[in-house]
């Protein structure tokens, strides 16, 4: 019984969590008060941290965060804003994938990457009331008085 228990612990510690394989991007800049809400918990965010699908980036007053996704999509999220990396998939061999970003409040600027080039509806950005199909390339999404 005991060795089995130890083995279970060992496997739990060694086995990479499922998301380890599917990180979406890397934090490139942080100014001010920036957290990521992951599985309902707020965590501080720093340059070099990875961003995962379903992460919600939350910025405070006079704050902003810059993220580069694995398909070269660039994101800057401004002050008092919330952005969810709702879905992200990218195959570096075929360069096909799926990007879905949700601007819940505030403002984000974006430059689309390889996924948007792969097929017309592969990259979408949603707001509380609209869905934008991104064919390219550089754009801003602003939600005043949102969530």
């Amino acid at each position, binding site marked *: 019984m005991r060795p089995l228990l130890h083995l279970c612990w060992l496997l739990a510690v060694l086995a990479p969590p499922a998301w380890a394989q599917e990180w979406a991007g890397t934090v490139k800049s942080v100014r001010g008060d920036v957290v990521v809400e992951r599985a309902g918990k707020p965590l501080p965010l720093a340059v070099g941290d990875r961003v995962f699908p379903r992460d919600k980036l939350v910025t405070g007053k006079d704050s902003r965060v810059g993220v580069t996704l694995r398909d070269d999509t660039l994101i800057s999220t401004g002050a008092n804003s919330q952005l969810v990396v709702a879905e992200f998939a990218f195959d570096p*061999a075929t360069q096909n994938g799926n990007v879905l970003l949700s601007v819940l409040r505030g403002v984000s600027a974006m430059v689309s990457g390889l996924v948007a080039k792969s097929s017309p509806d592969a990259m979408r950005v949603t707001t509380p009331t609209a869905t*934008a199909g991104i064919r390219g390339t550089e754009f801003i999404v*602003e939600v005043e*008085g*949102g969530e």
Partner: protein
Amino acid sequence: MANRILALLGCAALLAGCAGPRERIVLLPDKDGKVGAIEVRTATGTAELKEAYAVARVEGDKLAAEKTDAAAVAQRYGGVLDGLPARPLRHTLHFEFGSDRLTAASRAQVPGIQADLRQFPAPEVVVIGHTDAVGDAAINDRLSLERANRVRDILVEAGIPRDQIQTAGRGFREPLFPAKAGTPEPRNRRVEIKLR
């Protein structure tokens, strides 16, 4: 009387607030002046943004197409645009014919790659191998990944931390020079280095 008007105005403002968030989607020209396209859909309509500074504005259940300009964008969104991470930089390396050794010219590019990489916070190197279209897809996928891994090892020897480097093999999906399947085209056998 004045109080009553103020109260009415307050109600109107409240009602406008209740109508839901106000949203704007603004299409900008790319760095090189080209303009992409965005299709915006709501429950009640669709707007196609195709020109630089085209705006889709959503207020309540109304979707309107508008236009803005560079000065207004700089004023309202200058800060968030400044926060965009740097665009990736690219280098291309070639191998000596039929070998896994870089050409002398490509080896000479390595210090420049290291210098470029230092511009990026939390730097990432993506090494992407390419082949020509001799042999089947599976063989070329493997060969292109082997080339990418070989270049990764060269970059690690040059001092770039291994954990900053990702590799991928694109096989023959992205030829620089079009060639018939089965025809050797050495110029397509290459490794692209993307820094970001």
